[in-house]
């Protein structure tokens, strides 16, 4: 089977993408596999200025999941372009993940990336639960989401724009439609669910930030439901994610309407998991007699 998929204007070798914040700048995983074998790599979120991130502890393990409150620590766009991007091997398909606190700054970041040949697409993170300004408040208000998408689209040139949605809303379809109406070429979902973990002995939260974002297998049913809902509400390609840890999980997301998937926490469980998954998905699809993703996508019987 040819695993290739068409994501709007973007062609990927296969539907497996690594999720932002869980695969570093790709460089961290070079010892564990061939970066160009993965459909695409979504890079750690980047902001205009460097960000130190939140105090420790920043991560906690929960049953079938984890909480994180990293707070978008990153080197800033300038250092990223100088010190990271040149070292990522050619052949890897890269998606930049953008974070800013105002629509104008989102636009500015999009402008900077629009001329970078090595970047294939932009993913706009309006859904981070771990930062005070910007982040999830853009992802929870359809007007603000539209303002960000508009500002990014104005400056993104020919790069496709993916808008990453938050699950921390009452009806995810409302934001999805607002983003598409404002020009989003694609949607990705879900970002982490807001959660907490506390220690009854120390009487403290296990995170210095008190609350954090829940990811991992624990969130898969929620993610699957939201991808299913959004796939029926909009007409752009959808990238599904949330708790994927097997080839079966990947096919479940495609079955409910996703064009591609992202792998997050699973990258931590074993650093070569994304590489192994590409092959496992191919084998499973063939064993089910699937000849093309277009035939299989969204064929859930209800």
């Amino acid at each position, binding site marked *: 089977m040819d695993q290739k998929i068409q994501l709007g204007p973007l062609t990927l070798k296969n539907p497996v993408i690594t999720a932002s914040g869980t695969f570093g700048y790709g460089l961290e995983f070079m010892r564990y596999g061939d970066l160009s074998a993965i459909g695409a790599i979504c890079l750690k979120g980047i902001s205009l200025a460097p960000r130190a991130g939140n105090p*420790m502890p920043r991560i906690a393990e929960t049953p079938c999941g984890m909480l994180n409150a990293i707070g978008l620590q990153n080197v800033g766009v300038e250092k990223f372009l100088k010190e990271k991007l040149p070292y990522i091997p050619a052949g890897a398909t890269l998606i930049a993940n953008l974070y800013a606190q105002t629509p104008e700054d989102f636009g500015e970041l999009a402008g900077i990336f629009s001329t970078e040949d090595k970047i294939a697409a932009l993913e706009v993170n309006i859904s981070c639960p771990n930062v005070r300004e910007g982040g999830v408040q853009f992802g929870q208000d359809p007007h603000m989401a539209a303002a960000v998408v508009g500002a990014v689209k104005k400056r993104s040139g020919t790069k496709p724009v993916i808008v990453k949605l938050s699950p921390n809303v009452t009806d995810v379809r409302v934001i999805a439609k607002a983003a598409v109406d404002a020009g989003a070429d694609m949607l990705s979902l879900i970002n982490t669910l807001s959660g907490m973990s506390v220690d009854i002995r120390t009487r403290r939260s296990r995170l210095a930030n008190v609350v954090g974002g829940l990811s991992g297998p624990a969130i898969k049913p929620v993610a699957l439901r939201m991808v299913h809902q959004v796939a029926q509400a909009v007409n752009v390609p959808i990238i599904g994610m949330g708790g994927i840890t097997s080839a079966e999980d990947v096919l479940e997301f495609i079955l409910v309407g996703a064009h591609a998937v992202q792998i997050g926490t699973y990258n931590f469980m074993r650093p070569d998991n994304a590489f192994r998954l590409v092959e496992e998905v191919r084998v499973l699809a063939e064993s089910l007699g699937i000849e093309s993703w277009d035939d299989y996508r969204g064929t859930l019987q209800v």
Partner: protein
Amino acid sequence: MIDSQTPCRDLEVLSCRPGSDPSLIDLVLSAPGWTCKPGQFVMIRPAHWGVELVWPRPFSVCDVSDKGLRIIFQTVGRGTRKLAELEPGQKVTVWGPLGRWFRIDEARPNLILAGGVGIAPFVMLARRERTDNLSMLFGHRLDLEHYPYDEIAARIKSEAMQQKTPADIAQFETVLSERIKALAGVGQVLACGPEPMLKVVRKYCLLHGTDGQVSLENRMGCGVGACLGCVCKTTAGDYVQSCVHGPVFDVRDIELGV
């Protein structure tokens, strides 16, 4: 980093034995086919773990040779309790060796300061050819026979202090301070143990102007520098991943919470 070394593979459990105290486990896995330096660590995750525990767990390499990869760990929570149930023949996914190691100063005395299971990385260190510039001070809670203390003491000059009461801990701190002071300008200390002990070591190194390296045990999600969960604060004010920039740091380069 040596790229010819196999970075991620499934190793077989050769033995998994509680020591004379059931909370300390001696785990030996089949030989990974690589070498490493004392202070480096591996991430390990049993192949059959399923998804209830999502993270691998980091452990110092206690020893590695063509006979196997040895780890000594203490059962403290969900993961280590499950690891303690491993049986010979089961597979464990291991990636490593990871991180920066203890750097020996060949020209001067090097004093190992180990606390509890923090003694693990020094077993390999004591096996090196040249040991006359090495000595160890070991603080421990359980009786000495529960730890691999004799293996080290057979090769390098060692002393041990048991801590059962707050008064014992205070006395250990006094001795630490004296030893660190005595090495000011003369040698260096290499420390691994619980965080309160490392804070004391760092405090006296800075106070007396003694060179020192400490190994941090921050909570790790990935071990490869990607999750940014294991960071520690540098004296320059940045957060750096202790899995790649550490776990062994120069005491002057990092902050250790108050």
